[in-house]
């Protein structure tokens, strides 16, 4: 069953890849040692996805461009060096989980991706533009990068539907009618069709977070960033938010998720990144990170987390 889903999502990836590469080109894909041969529209395509445990995705033998490429990222708050020379990539359609102790710089890394934190040095490449560049139009690029916060941050002066339509309408992405249609569609998908006219402040935490996800989706982003989306929720309603995220992952959305939900990280992600003291200490497939971590500090962290 899981294998089937993987194959389906590979096909999704493949479709995107094919769209990106010129017609008639041949692409290679290898996933975790297993090679899938695929024939599509009369072409033979092979896709290489180098997310094997030790190999950083190196893009010279890779046809698919990473959606996000972070190079030599550094960030300090005063004397505190929070990110120490981070290199990190996210492929289209990939679901990456970032785990690590609190204070290790996970949020800062995530917030550097859409430049809510301005890096001290380094590059954040997205569609050929460097978000960290001096002259880059960050606002425009952010439209394609959705973000979900730990504290929901719904607009308190708006109702649920207006939360969803504010950005598309203000940024003239579509007409008001279409924005409302989009809002209704996404709110229905997260199970909140009945709350469309409710004031944002009247919702429970789990509902707020689902609205926040719908709000981000209304901008039709190419990638979604989640910063501990369930950490502020009561344990019994964590599931309703995680289910929405699972569905999103199954639809092929590219996602970077900072989380302490290890079960979610293990079952949903394509790759798990372990951060420690401002560096990426280890990354690899969920099986490897959770089943066979190589770094002692990863082992120590997981022992502390899973032991509980």
């Amino acid at each position, binding site marked *: 069953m899981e294998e089937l889903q993987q194959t389906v999502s590979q096909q999704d990836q493949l479709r995107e890849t094919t769209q990106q590469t010129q017609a008639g080109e041949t692409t290679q894909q290898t996933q975790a040692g297993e090679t899938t041969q695929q024939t599509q529209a009369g072409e033979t395509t092979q896709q290489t996805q180098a997310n094997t445990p030790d190999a950083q995705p190196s893009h010279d033998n890779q046809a698919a461009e990473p959606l996000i490429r972070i190079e030599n990222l550094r960030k300090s708050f005063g004397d505190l060096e929070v990110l120490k020379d981070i290199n990190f990539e996210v492929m289209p359609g990939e679901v990456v989980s970032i785990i690590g102790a609190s204070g290790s710089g996970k949020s800062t890394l995530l917030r550097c991706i*859409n*430049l*809510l934190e*301005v890096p001290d040095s380094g590059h954040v490449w997205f569609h050929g533009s460097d978000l960290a560049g*001096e002259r880059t*139009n*960050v*606002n*425009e690029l*952010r*439209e394609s*990068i*959705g*973000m979900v*916060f730990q*504290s929901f*941050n*719904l*607009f*308190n*002066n708006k109702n649920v539907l207006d939360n969803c339509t*504010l*950005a598309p309408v*203000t*940024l003239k992405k579509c007409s008001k009618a279409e924005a409302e249609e989009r809002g209704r569609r996404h709110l229905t998908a997260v199970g909140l069709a009945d709350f469309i006219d409710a004031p944002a402040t009247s919702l429970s935490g789990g509902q707020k977070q689902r609205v*926040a996800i719908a*709000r*981000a989706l209304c*901008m039709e982003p190419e990638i979604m960033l989640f910063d501990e989306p369930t950490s502020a929720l009561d344990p019994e309603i964590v599931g309703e938010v995680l289910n929405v995220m699972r569905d999103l992952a199954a639809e092929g959305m590219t996602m970077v998720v900072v989380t302490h939900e290890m079960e979610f990280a293990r079952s949903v992600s394509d790759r798990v990144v372990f951060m420690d003291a401002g560096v990426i200490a280890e990354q690899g497939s969920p099986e490897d990170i959770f089943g066979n971590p190589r770094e002692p500090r990863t082992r120590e962290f997981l022992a502390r987390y899973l032991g509980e």
Partner: protein
Amino acid sequence: MLGRIASFFKDDHRYVFLGTSAFALVGLWLAMQPRTPSSFLAQSYALEVVLYYLLVAWLVLSAVALVNKLIKWRDYGTSSPFVRESLRRMVRIASYVMWAIVCVFIVDRLGMGLVDLVRTSTQASSNPTDFLSSTVYMLSKSSSIFATGIITTIELATFGTIIAFFLALLMVFLRIQEIDRSDNDFIRFLKTVGSGFAKLYSTVIRGTPMMIQGMIIYFAGFGVLRGTGMSVSEIGAIWSTFVAGLVTISLNSTAYMMEVLRGGIEAVDSGQTEAARSLGLSQWQAMMKVVFPQGVKNAVPALSNELVINIKDSSVLSVIGVFDLMFATTTVAGIYFKQSEIYVVAAVCYLILTMTATWLLNKLSRRLTGAAPRTLPSSN
């Protein structure tokens, strides 16, 4: 309200004897005061005597109850006749009668006395010597002066506050501008200048007395118009003391309201901005659509205090000759050469105005935000 009154009459009161006796003593004292010409009890002397002795009877009953209590200190609750249900009810009803009697005396002596005082002092040919009569005399003779003053004060405070609110919205907008990464050099320059101007404005206005601001504005405006070759009467038509006063109070209040608004805006959680920015909104859009509306709403209760402050502080504008309540008071005091009476009147007028404003604003602000403002605003 009605329910509260009803329960007052139904409830059993612990201090029936003590409280009613104290009040009955007041009644007795009033009964011994001389009757005024329009006293209605003067026509029925017998009734007054009956009422008087009813009060005395109550005092005697209370004394008996007190002695009874002192004697039966230990087992009062079980053995005293005064704790019996039937007697308790009768005593309570009797106490209501006593209160009614005392009220009759209050109306007869104090109420009718005041009516007489007003009648005689308004018809007096010269200013009477005692405090109350003199006050009433002067009030009646110069009521139109006071009316003009009160209306001008209300106008100054209300229009001044409203104008200042909109100016403050503009100023706080300049004040909170911050340089964003995506701003070009021109925008950066504008933001720096705008924010600096607002900061300077706030510092200067809040750091100098409004009285002096009024002087400067009035005479500077006068001087400028004089420079254009207008005659004094022409200037008076457009740059009246009222207009100058209104400009002063508006500009002054703007600075304070701007700070209140800034507080409200800074109290908006930074997550609101971050969420808006993460969706691609510019700093300006996030400000306009998300932060500003919430910040203004936060500030509404504190903002409404500005009206109350302006009612009081507009009094300093009388130095440039604005015909407000303070100016009216000074004028009347000058006519009769009686200061303390007239200034007490002015104080009472200001108190009524500010209490009315507070009450109205409480209602308004509760409707707007569901929260009540602080009730006693301090002066600027």
